[in-house]
């Protein structure tokens, strides 16, 4: 059960297993299969960066998210056949659950790590791959095998060169365990230890050890540190061999080298998954899991609760799958913000195609089955779908958005409008005034349409200031009911989908969500907002006043580049803000 109040809902666990069940992860494995960081690499050069004008806010120490941990473990052990680490959910800020503000370690977190790393290391030792220098019984020289394996593993786990003290620490522990327990337990315990170190769990940066602090209080990062920042932002995982090589060669100390690596990394399918996780959080995909549809209103033809329950479960599954497939195709075919807001291509089942009035391409299909409630298996088949251009345009007219922002009986222009203001325009409406009068009091009459029901807000002076802005971009969605299906009539009356965009560079009256989406697609305000959202995600924190110039430069670049999302990722990674760290505000 999920509350849909004010655009809210429970965060979906960003878990690798869910994804893996829908889309093939094999590409991850391929990309990770060149293990080549065992040779000694010299420390990166220490060429100082040229001092730029951009100032950034203090860095937030980042602990790997559950998604990042699972991907990293797969890359570390070169296999996808590991039990998933499941951590307590993170508390999102602005929708993003990687924000450092609320991610202080908790007892349950530490306990979960300790428990799950036992399972991970046991599985890794059950079927060891090239990461282990011998068989899992230790082979002919177990101590030598343990030492050489751990020597390599600690550097890959810490994502940098290690000191002699650090190496002695883990080898010494291994020796103790080996003496009393033998090879396999000693190996598992040593690996568990590595996987719970702060160096592995956090993106630890040690400022000022070998770099001078700039006049603005910022210090350049080492190449290793830049590599970790890049790979965890662009891939949600650890650096690969090539990125380690670039770090060691000092290529990441200069902007050009960072750009070159970023371009390379974005061509890898790991970046697709990273973007999907970003979109899931920015576009509130977690709401799909909690959607509730009133069967009496929408599925009255169905016999009983069981039948309607199955229908809704399959509907949720279809929306979940559509969200991922839609974004995957959109990033491949277009990849601009404007495209996101205007494309008429998506994926649908035969059922959801009906709600869309879509044309299906049945020559291609993807069949997805999933356990629901651990009891029922639901299977759906998705087809590429072309949507009617006069009724649909982009994500804001997609079922995953429309259904996620509706009540079980009535669609909600408020939830939809607040989403547009908050997530697309970065202009969150103030919270409701303290003295919200009940709608009933204002009505005085039975509302004829859904719009009537909500118009009370704007008619009341106390509410109207915010609601003009919210409803102006909320009422244009009135053509879509709680299932996201198109309607020309509401309760027997013609739908009025007129609204107005306020407070942007594209202000003015608007009629319907197609016109609204096409308008927003040309808006500088919307483009600027997406940069700000990505910046929050990349930096693991809210923007601060000190970030103003950095963000403004990125926004300008994004706008000039035609809103190309991958281009924005490169610009963020290449920016001063991303490649340096600040200890305190100016």
């Amino acid at each position, binding site marked *: 059960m999920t509350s849909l109040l004010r655009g809210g809902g429970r965060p979906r666990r960003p878990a690798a297993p869910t994804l893996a069940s829908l889309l093939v992860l094999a590409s991850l494995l391929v990309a990770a299969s060149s293990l080549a960081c065992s040779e000694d690499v010299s420390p990166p050069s220490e060429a100082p960066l040229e001092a730029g004008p951009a100032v950034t806010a203090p860095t937030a*120490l980042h602990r790997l998210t559950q998604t990042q941990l699972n991907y990293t473990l797969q890359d570390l052990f070169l296999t996808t056949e590991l039990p998933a680490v499941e951590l307590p959910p993170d508390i999102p800020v602005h929708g993003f659950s990687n924000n450092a503000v609320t991610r202080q370690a908790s007892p349950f977190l530490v306990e979960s790590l300790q428990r799950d790393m036992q399972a991970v290391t046991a599985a890794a030792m059950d079927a060891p791959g090239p990461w282990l220098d011998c068989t899992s019984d230790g082979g002919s020289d177990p101590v030598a095998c343990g030492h050489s394996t751990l020597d390599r593993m600690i550097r890959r786990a810490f994502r940098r060169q290690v000191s002699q003290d650090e190496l002695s620490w883990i080898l010494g522990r291994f020796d103790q365990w080996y003496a009393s327990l033998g090879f396999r337990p000693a190996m598992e315990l040593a690996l568990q230890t590595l996987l719970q*170190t702060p160096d592995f769990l956090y993106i630890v940066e040690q400022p000022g050890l070998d770099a001078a602090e700039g006049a603005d209080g910022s210090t350049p990062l080492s190449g290793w540190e830049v590599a970790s920042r890049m790979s965890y932002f662009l891939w949600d995982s650890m650096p690969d061999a090539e990125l380690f090589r670039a770090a060691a060669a000092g290529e990441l100390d200069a902007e050009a080298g960072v750009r070159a690596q970023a371009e390379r990394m974005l061509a890898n399918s790991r970046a697709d998954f990273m973007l999907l996780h970003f979109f899931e959080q920015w576009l509130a995909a977690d709401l799909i899991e909690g959607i509730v549809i009133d069967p009496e209103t929408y599925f009255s033809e169905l016999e009983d609760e069981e039948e309607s329950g199955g229908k809704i479960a399959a509907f949720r599954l279809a929306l979940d799958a559509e969200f991922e497939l839609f974004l995957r195709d959109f990033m491949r075919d277009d990849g601009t913000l404007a495209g996101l807001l205007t494309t008429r291509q998506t994926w649908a089942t035969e059922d959801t195609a009906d709600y869309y009035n879509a044309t299906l391409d049945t020559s291609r299909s993807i069949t997805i089955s999933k356990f629901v409630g651990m009891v029922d298996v639901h299977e759906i088949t998705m087809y590429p779908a072309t949507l009617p251009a006069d009724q649909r345009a982009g994500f804001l007219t997609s079922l995953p958005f429309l259904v996620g922002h509706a009540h079980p009986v009535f669609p909600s222009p408020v939830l939809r409008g607040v989403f547009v203001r908050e997530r697309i325009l970065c202009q969150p409406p103030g919270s409701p005034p303290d003295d919200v009068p009940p709608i009933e009091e204002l009505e005085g009459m039975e509302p004829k349409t859904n719009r009537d029901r909500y118009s009370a807000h704007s008619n009341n002076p106390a509410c109207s200031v915010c609601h003009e802005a919210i409803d102006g971009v909320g009422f244009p969605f009135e053509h879509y009911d709680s299932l996201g299906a198109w309607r020309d009539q509401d309760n027997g009356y013609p739908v009025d989908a007129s609204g107005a965009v306020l407070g942007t560079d594209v202000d003015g009256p608007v009629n319907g969500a197609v016109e609204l989406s096409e308008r927003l697609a040309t808006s500088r305000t919307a483009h600027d907002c997406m940069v700000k959202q990505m910046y929050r995600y990349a930096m693991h924190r809210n923007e601060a006043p000190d970030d103003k110039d950095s963000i403004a430069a990125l926004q300008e670049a994004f706008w000039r580049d035609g809103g190309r999302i991958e281009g924005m990722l490169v610009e963020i990674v290449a920016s001063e803000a991303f490649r340096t760290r600040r200890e305190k505000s100016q």
Partner: protein
Amino acid sequence: MSVRRRNFLTAMGLGAGSLFLPSLSRRARASGTPPTRFVLMYSAQGTVPDRWSTNPTDQPADHSWVEDMAGWSVGEMGEILAPLHAYRSQISVVDGLGLVSAEADGSGFRHERAQAHSLTGANAAWVGGFPYAGDATIDQVIADVVARPDRYRSLELSVGGGLSYDGYGSVIYRGRNQPLPVIDDPRLLWDRLFGAGMNGPIQDNQASVLDALSERYGALAGQLNPVDQQKLDAHRELVHALEAQIVGLAEAVCDDVPARPQTHGDYDTDFAAQLGMATVALSCDLTRVVSFQMGQLTNAQLGAPPGDVHADFAHGIYDSQEASDVMTAYGNYHASHFAQILAALEAVPEGEGTLLDSTLVVWMSEMADSWHGFDRYPVVVGGGGGACLRLGRYVHFPRSTPYQGLQYDQYPTMGLPHQRFLVSLCQAMGLPINAMPITELYNAMGERIDCSGPITELLA
């Protein structure tokens, strides 16, 4: 407004004698010992005040008064609290508190602001314009003192997805901006409490893994900036605590462990399962502090037409009979949950009494009423602690705090600052705390409002 850190009176022998309250010294003289366990039930939407409070003896509303509930009939308990009639001598009800500090702290976000203030007594930590809790919640303050270092410090449970609306996940905070994640799925709770795998060299040597980690955290200390260091220090302390917990839990013996639940998603089934496991965990001392975050009830549970309780009814309690009826059913439903908690604890024999005797059980909610008001904030406290807490009492406070909040009836004053209740809970648990943590507020006229000290009518 002035905010002071909590006053640990035991540590304040130096010049702080004046803060040593009569109630404390009185309690110190009492022969019994305070309860050792604490259970919090926290529900959404406040209540329908007129149908929650009661006044069978027709006492004046504008005076403080205390009534003994022993002789009350079901009807006299009030509509919403009626399910607690059987327990009326084991609970006390406080009518007439106000979330005064919440009114004074920013604007908007009334659900979230009330959540932050009601449980902490502190001002919210506003991050990105959103009010997160600004200090530890009451259960965590109590856990600081009563939790065993070698067991689970506390269990944070939720039913129906919990009740922080915007997906923020939890209303329980270890400290400022430190929400503690909840377990909503009873199967996960079972796995955590009772699912420890087999023994073997790996399991038997976990303490040495954690010891190795402590060493690594230590080696890293001093190499980072203070803010990062603080974060890692917190993690390091948890690793250290886990080491003690692993050793301690290995020695715990739990009888009557329930079977692993098979499902997740049905509100009442989940609650029963969570409660059953929490009761076992309390009885075999796996933990001493448990909180239940009760998620939003649905229209179907309340027999209301399809829709959304909050959107359809909650705001309308003062304007629509139907809304008032539905929200009364809402409160009633949770009163039954509270009764179930009392019953579950009472069913476990312990010493010469029951588990309930050593457990302080509290029911609090977010706002005072579902119209978003903060005045006449409803609380029920019960269970053990007879040595420290007076039970069987109905305590009424008039609206005599000179602060005007958002009140439907636009009354110029509010009830007693709720910090007083939080302080009472601490003192009933034997904690030497006299402020939670706001000590005073000022209204627009500059008049001082005292928020410190306990509710003496509640303490023995």
